[in-house]
């Protein structure tokens, strides 16, 4: 019996269930406005600058530039910023944009970081709107006809789009494909309904240039400039909208190690941003945002505490079992098959776990249905989905350790 563990278990269950129920209700009541399909009117036909910072992207940049050329929108300029790449990126950029006057190329000999590259691009941009895009991402042709009408509300400072995974391969990418559909697409729409979007994703987001100028661009000290700018937009009482029908396709790191590095940057950056803007927490001046972010991180904190407690208890139980086996000549193999399932031995905590799993899967299916995803193509990812929560804890743990140790988090 571990009373504190059980209290923590029930607390995490209650907070996470409440959180998901809130999101599900918002989704349910706002289901008719998930896909708004706003009409592109002549007043929306504004000049747009797309800024693409690139650092050592020789394998992907050509494809990205090709996809940019296919965008079907006339009032457009492209600003490609080479951020001190040490590979063939600048050469490939030059070759790919040759002869196309819509492209401008900034070649920085020194690596300055993504935020600084974006700011450099913003400085020279002519567009009334600034779209930022990662060099490994691809957007659909008519993206601006879909997103620009959202700026008809003068208070909207930024619009995010559905971030999807480009050609997911392997078990890891298929699992995270689901996370992108739900977390970086559907939920961003849901968050926008309560004015609580806390990230304008790097793969593609579009901003009103006047607001970016007012906010003095991206924070060059931040390792997650897309999260930091979202906080400042909210802090200045602007809105961040989401256009679910517009899509950007990005790639997921192919290996677990690379994924860990990416997530360590994301999550550490999120904590640094939270620390920088701690005055927003539980502050009614910022509407729902301050409460929502607080609730979100409270859940993460308690979730991590539960995860660590579970790991500790599991290992201590395992150690006790192994200790016991020393008195029985370590006949572990003989006993391992004695384990039998009996409904009568199912504890309330197990019922709680089963209920949570069913609840999570239900929300997942509703979410996939709402985003009109082809579930049959994602069956492997759906099966793996519950494992995501385990991976989250690992990533949060790695990030927390890195912060506690005062380790400098790098981009790559």
């Amino acid at each position, binding site marked *: 019996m571990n009373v504190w563990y059980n209290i923590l278990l029930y607390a995490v269950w209650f907070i996470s269930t409440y959180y998901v129920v809130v999101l599900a209700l918002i989704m349910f009541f706002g289901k008719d406005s998930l896909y708004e399909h706003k009409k592109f009117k002549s007043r929306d036909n504004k000049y747009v600058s797309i800024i693409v910072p690139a650092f050592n992207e020789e394998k992907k940049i050509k494809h990205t530039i090709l996809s940019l050329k296919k965008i079907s929108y006339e009032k457009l300029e492209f600003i490609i910023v080479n951020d001190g790449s040490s590979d063939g990126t600048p050469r490939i950029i030059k070759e790919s944009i040759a002869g196309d006057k819509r492209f401008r190329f900034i070649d920085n000999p020194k690596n300055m970081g993504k935020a600084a590259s974006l700011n450099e691009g913003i400085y020279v941009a002519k567009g009334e709107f600034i779209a930022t895009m990662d060099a490994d991402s691809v957007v659909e042709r008519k993206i601006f006809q879909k997103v620009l009408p959202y700026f008809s509300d003068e208070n909207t400072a930024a619009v995010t789009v559905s971030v999807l995974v480009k050609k997911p391969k392997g078990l890891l990418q298929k699992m995270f494909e689901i996370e992108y559909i739900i977390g970086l697409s559907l939920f961003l729409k849901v968050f926008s*309904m309560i004015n609580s979007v806390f990230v304008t994703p790097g793969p593609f987001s579009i901003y009103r240039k006047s607001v970016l100028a007012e906010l003095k661009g991206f924070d060059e000290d931040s390792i997650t400039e897309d999260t930091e700018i979202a906080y400042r937009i909210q802090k200045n009482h602007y809105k961040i909208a989401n256009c679910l029908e517009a899509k950007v396709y990005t790639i997921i790191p192919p290996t677990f190690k690379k994924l860990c590095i990416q997530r360590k940057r994301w999550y550490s950056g999120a904590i640094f941003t939270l620390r920088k803007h701690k005055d927003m927490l539980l502050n009614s001046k910022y509407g729902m945002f301050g409460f929502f972010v607080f609730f979100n991180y409270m859940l993460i904190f308690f979730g991590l505490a539960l995860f660590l407690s579970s790991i500790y208890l599991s290992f201590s139980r395992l150690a006790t079992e192994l200790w016991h086996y020393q008195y029985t000549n370590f006949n572990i193999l003989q006993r391992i098959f004695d384990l039998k399932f009996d409904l009568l031995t199912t504890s309330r905590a197990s*019922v709680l776990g089963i209920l949570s799993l069913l609840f999570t899967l239900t929300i997942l299916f509703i979410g996939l249905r709402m985003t009109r995803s082809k579930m049959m193509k994602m069956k492997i990812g759906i099966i793996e989905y519950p494992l995501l929560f385990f991976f989250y804890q690992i990533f949060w743990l790695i990030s927390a350790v890195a912060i506690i140790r005062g380790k400098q988090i790098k981009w790559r």
Partner: protein
Amino acid sequence: MEMKKSIFIIAFLITISLLCILLIAGNVLNDDRKTYVEDQMQAISDINDVQTYSLMNDIYGNKMACLAFKQKLKDWDKSLWDLGMKLEQYRVATEEFSKDPFYIQQKTKFNENELLYMLFLTKINKECNLDQDVVTFFYKKSEVCSKCDDQSFVLTDIKKDLEENVSIFSFDTDLNITNVQLLVEYYDVSEFPCVIINEKKFCGIEDKNFILKEICETNNNSLNCKN
């Protein structure tokens, strides 16, 4: 679109409802567990069989009673052992925030029944020359006796191997059952865990090999020592 604050209240009520469903489901499961344990306890608590065998012994003599007892011994032993295991599983499944009074009540009953069967088996063992191995185990809660859990693990492992060829009786001395305390005094148990193997006392943790060896040494005719 602006979301109404009522959504947060509705969500809270839904979450509370889900928690209630969970607690009710847990209670239904607990009631099933209790019914099962009570039924099993009732089955082994039926002392009519014991009385019948005693009367048989008085009226028809040893031979008849021993024959009948030999046939029944395996059933009793298995029922008692299974119930002991179920009780332990019940404890693990229900112990969340405090000790379940039902568990303590049933554990007390179980220990009392165990004692009755142990005494009866010891008597029949002598009168019928059964050579059934009897192991009695005295323990305390793990907070004060860390080795008691180890010893319990060893005895469970032995029981899994030898099944009905050995009768193992475990007594929780923390329950303060008068008759169990009398046994503790009789065997002069002052250190825990303590194991009585065919009437020979061994206090302190003993491993599987030692206990199997002692079973053979203390009972030359033990079925467990044929090889």
